[in-house]
């Protein structure tokens, strides 16, 4: 003979399940409503803005690369100083508050080039300095660039390892 309490629970149970199902149903309906009302981003305009800005940054990069090649470096040796110059450019533009304005226009066109990567480091450094030079700027400088380095190293070393053992 189940206790009074247990019997009450039997009759209670479907109610809570129903309530949960009702909540799920509402969420689904609302999700559809939101999707229906949500304004579409201007895909073409955004793509073009990113394309032109990103392309221009790469064009600049090509100029820097050619400069180092003309100075007598080979193509591989010239990559490191080219990246350095681009990173410096990103930091300078960030310091003068230009880069986030550029990104507001260009989106990924400003974020994806290495200048954008430098911006994530400089912006975090500038922004978190008020929380202290050690625990603020020092600790949080890589708050966005950190994951890029972590997953870059993980996947890069992994890919190189696979390539190495398949060659051996």
């Amino acid at each position: 003979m189940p206790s009074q309490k247990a019997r009450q629970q039997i009759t209670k149970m479907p109610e809570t399940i129903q309530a949960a199902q009702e909540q799920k149903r509402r969420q689904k309906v609302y999700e559809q409503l939101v999707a229906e009302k949500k304004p579409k981003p201007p895909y073409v305009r955004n793509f073009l803005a990113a394309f032109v800005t990103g392309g221009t940054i790469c064009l600049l990069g090509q100029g820097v690369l050619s400069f180092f090649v003309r100075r007598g470096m080979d193509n591989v040796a010239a990559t490191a100083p080219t990246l350095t110059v681009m990173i410096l450019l990103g930091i300078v533009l960030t310091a003068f508050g230009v880069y986030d304005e550029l990104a507001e226009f260009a989106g990924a066109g400003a974020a994806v080039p290495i200048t954008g990567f430098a911006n994530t480091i400089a912006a975090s450094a500038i922004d978190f300095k008020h929380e202290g030079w050690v625990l603020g700027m020092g600790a949080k400088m890589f708050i966005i660039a950190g994951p890029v380095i972590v997953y870059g190293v993980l996947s890069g070393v992994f890919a190189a390892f696979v390539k190495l053992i398949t060659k051996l």
Partner: protein
Amino acid sequence: MAYLIAFLIGGTICGLGQLILDLTTLSPGHVLVMFTVLGALAGGFGIYQPFLKFAGAGALVPVTGFGASIAKGSLLEAQRIGFIGLFTGAFEFTGQGLAVAVFFSAIAAIFFNPRS
């Protein structure tokens, strides 16, 4: 010609990034990581080098190039000195850029405040 190719290829990579941002709810951080990982995998398997040769800065400047440089450093060192090179070589080509970024970001932090 090299300039035009750099513009077109670099622009296309950035445009693709923007499409991903617009079509999904991924944050820019996620897209950066995604592109770096793609570049690193392509670099490690040796697909990125021909691409780099063709597109120049158009392949080097986007973060895909950063990922590829990590993988390339790892691979070249490993081929030279064995497995330990996988790790010693990881920052072979990117270390300089990272050091520059850290150094000059710190300097920027000393002299500048956030605006707008």
